[in-house]
């Protein structure tokens, strides 16, 4: 309601204390034992203030965010401390008191809007549910207001979009609709729980801008949870770094970015500084020539794609989701035979379909996937996972096989003692290392890495990327590296292929693709990657306002 507070960010008036969390303790149950997740966190938030919570997965960010609503997920319990919201202690208040605050005075915006909207109801119905239930407005008023919010959040077709079902709307639009839903009751506090993590960078810019504007317009206090420092730098007045459920440090945004005090905070920054000297390309190991592919008789997913991978080099394929990156991998491996075009490997055309290729061809091209959890059979030990391709491709058994497994474990910098473990007993980064060892076991010439670091925390990502680069130096293996993350591309590639809607829009050596002038889509993609500068988003939006046509491709 406070629409007068339009002063610029950072300089806007902060009110009295809205939320005060003291010595918060939260435990989670695993195997019938209660383990601490959050260990004594303090947090103070004033009216109209945005606090960024940052940390790796498992740091307790989301758990703290939910605790600010007096809510604990199943299998968790708040075991100590206090959460005082506007004079009400949420931990001692009655269920009914807490319930009435939720959705009205404290709202929540979830990470995956696609999963958090109920598939059975229209968006508008869900948007206005809380205010109708509490009788704040009549249905007609509420709908009018919701449409007005859709307008402000710059949703396309705001009059109509509310009558759609969640599956009929894109992820970026859903995320904005969810922000509208949070705003309907004009809450005092909104918890944003990684609202843009599942989005492409090009879409992320739009959502970030929309969220920031509306939070400022209504002078809403917010807790903004993310693992992406550059994102939080755009959104927050203050940043709090968490690790293992404890506070590491807390400071105003600019101060935190320029002079972090703790070693851990600095390490969060470091990943983005990883870089590789670009190597000039040599003789090609893989050539994808004029490939066109489709699923069934449906729309073409790839049209006329030509990509070359030089031996011993890394070619990064970048683009947003739906651009055909993973389909390209499926075509190269033979999982999806192309409609037109050729795959030339080591100078010879490969059969289109997987089943027509012989074992030796299969051996030479290996794949590593995004989700190591689902890529590893949970019932096989590391020994079986790595041993199988050794036996299958190399015919080694017994002591020779064991020697080879131990060699591979050394290559991926893991101890031999892990070979008897099941995937469930390994961390995410360790599982991805096992996937790498499994690919190496076949002694391939080309490894296709499909978003291999996307599911991992920044620090673990860095370890995996360094491992991949070292393996390339030592073994001369070539990578086709599929990713949507530009920081990763900068870190490891020699050449870059930019894809958009199933076509290659630009390709060339890294330095060339990354330095201007760029074709329009590359420009949009590169300029959308958040930077540590807290003014980045403001400046970017100002620049784009000057050239409105650049926004078109990103508005989805």
């Amino acid at each position: 309601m406070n629409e007068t507070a339009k002063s610029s960010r950072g300089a806007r008036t902060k009110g009295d204390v809205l939320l005060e969390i003291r010595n918060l303790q939260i435990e989670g149950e695993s195997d019938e034992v209660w383990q601490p997740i959050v260990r004594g966190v303090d947090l103070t938030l004033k009216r109209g203030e945005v606090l960024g919570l940052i940390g790796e997965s498992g740091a307790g960010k989301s758990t703290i965010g939910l605790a600010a609503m007096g809510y604990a997920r199943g299998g968790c319990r708040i075991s100590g401390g206090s959460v005082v919201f506007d004079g009400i202690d949420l931990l001692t208040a009655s269920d009914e008191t807490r319930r009435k605050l939720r959705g009205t005075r404290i709202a929540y915006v979830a990470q995956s809007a696609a999963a958090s909207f109920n598939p059975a109801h229209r968006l508008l119905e869900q948007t206005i549910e809380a205010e109708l239930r509490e009788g704040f407005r009549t249905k007609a008023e509420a709908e009018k207001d919701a449409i007005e919010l859709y307008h402000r959040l710059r949703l396309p077709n705001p009059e109509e979009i509310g009558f759609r079902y969640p599956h009929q709307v894109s992820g970026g639009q859903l995320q904005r609709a969810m922000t509208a839903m949070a705003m309907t009751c004009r809450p005092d506090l909104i918890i944003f729980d990684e609202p843009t993590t599942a989005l492409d960078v090009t879409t992320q810019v739009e959502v970030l801008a929309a969220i920031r504007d509306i939070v400022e317009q209504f002078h809403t206090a917010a807790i903004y949870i993310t693992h992406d420092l550059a994102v939080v730098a755009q959104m927050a007045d203050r940043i709090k770094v968490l690790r293992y459920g404890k506070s590491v440090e807390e400071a105003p945004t600019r101060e935190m970015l320029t002079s972090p005090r703790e070693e851990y905070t600095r390490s969060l920054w470091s990943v983005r500084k990883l870089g590789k000297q670009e190597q000039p390309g040599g003789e090609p190991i893989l050539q994808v020539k004029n490939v066109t592919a489709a699923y069934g008789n449906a729309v073409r997913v790839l049209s006329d794609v030509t990509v070359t991978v030089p031996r011993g080099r890394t070619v990064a394929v970048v683009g947003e989701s739906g651009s055909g990156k993973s389909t390209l991998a499926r075509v190269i491996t033979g999982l999806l035979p192309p409609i037109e075009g050729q795959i030339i490997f080591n100078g010879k055309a490969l059969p289109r379909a997987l089943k027509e290729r012989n074992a030796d061809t299969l051996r030479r091209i290996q794949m590593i996937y995004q989700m190591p959890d689902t890529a590893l059979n949970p019932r096989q030990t590391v020994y079986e996972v790595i041993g199988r391709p050794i036996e299958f491709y190399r015919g080694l058994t017994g002591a020779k096989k064991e020697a080879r497994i131990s060699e591979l474990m050394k290559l991926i910098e893991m101890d031999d003692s892990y070979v008897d473990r099941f995937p469930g007993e390994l961390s995410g980064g360790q599982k991805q290392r096992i996937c790498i060892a499994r690919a190496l076991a076949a002694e391939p010439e080309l490894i296709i890495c499909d978003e291999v670091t996307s599911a991992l925390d920044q620090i673990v990502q860095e370890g995996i990327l360094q491992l991949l680069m070292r393996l390339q130096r030592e073994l001369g293996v070539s990578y086709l590296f599929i990713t949507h993350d530009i920081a990763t591309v900068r870190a490891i590639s020699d050449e870059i292929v930019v894809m958009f809607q199933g076509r290659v829009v630009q390709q060339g050596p890294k330095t060339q693709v990354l330095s201007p002038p760029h074709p329009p889509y590359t420009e949009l993609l590169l300029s959308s990657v958040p930077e540590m500068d807290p003014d980045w988003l403001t400046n970017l939006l100002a620049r784009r306002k000057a050239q409105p046509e650049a926004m078109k491709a990103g508005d989805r």
Partner: protein
Amino acid sequence: MNPVLRTILQRLGLGIATLFVVSIIISLTIEMLPGDFARAVLGQSATPETVAAFQREIGLDRSPVVRYFNWISGVLRGDFGESYASAGSLAGHRRLVAEMIGPRLLNTLFLAGAAALIAVPLSLFLGFMAALYRNSFFDRAVNVVSLTSISSPEFFLAYILIMFLAVKFPIFVSLASITPNMPFLDRLHAIALPTLTLVLVIVAHMMRMTRAAIINLLASPYIEMSRLKGARPMQVILRHALPNAWAPIANVIALNLAYLVVGVVVVEVVFTYPGIGQLMVDAVSKRDLPVVQGCALVFAGTYILLNLLADIVTIVSNPRLLHPR
């Protein structure tokens, strides 16, 4: 064409095809039944000539294929043939199978309908409550009671009910004999005990599936979201979980309703209720094959129809199908 309508028509066509296949299987099975109707009626002492003449009269001398086509073409015109049992009687009063099955089927549907009207809402309600108060005393109690009733044989439940509600406390009657011109309320009174027995038998299944389908959804992010939007616990279940849980619930309801029509012979026997189940058992023991065939076809049709309805509910409750992109 609307994709939902198309899917439904496809299912309908598939259902009719299934019914055809079932009709062939029924005829084949009956062909393989041991024993001979003519001998069963005429007795051991009948001469081969008498037997042959009798077989000619009821058409048993023709080949199975011809008999199948005669039968199925009749069925398509609504004629289920004549009962063998009446063919043998010298009075010459021939009874049509349709005439025999019709009233019995109505009785069965009456009993099934009464049981369904109680059991379906009751099991949905108990399922919601059990999901809402998961692992509470209420949840456990409902589970134990329903599991006990589903694990006991139906006739046992029936006799227990008779003992308490008809013998010790004569509220209801133990013989559920009804006649066509009985007043409606008297009929309800007469079928109270068999209805209660059937309700006890089918509630557990449906209630447990309802509970499981809803609990399965309670872990979804959109359910957590509805809680974080301050929805009341009952709203969470009814408004946010239930619309997404209809598919499995509808399927188990369809199976149980089908059971009410085709599987109640034991209950009919205990309460001497003149339903279609008894008719079929009698017909089998008398080798009255047209009646057996007719009953079997009605049962198959019931199953197929109810499963078709469940399929339609599944399709209609899925907004992705109902509202394509």
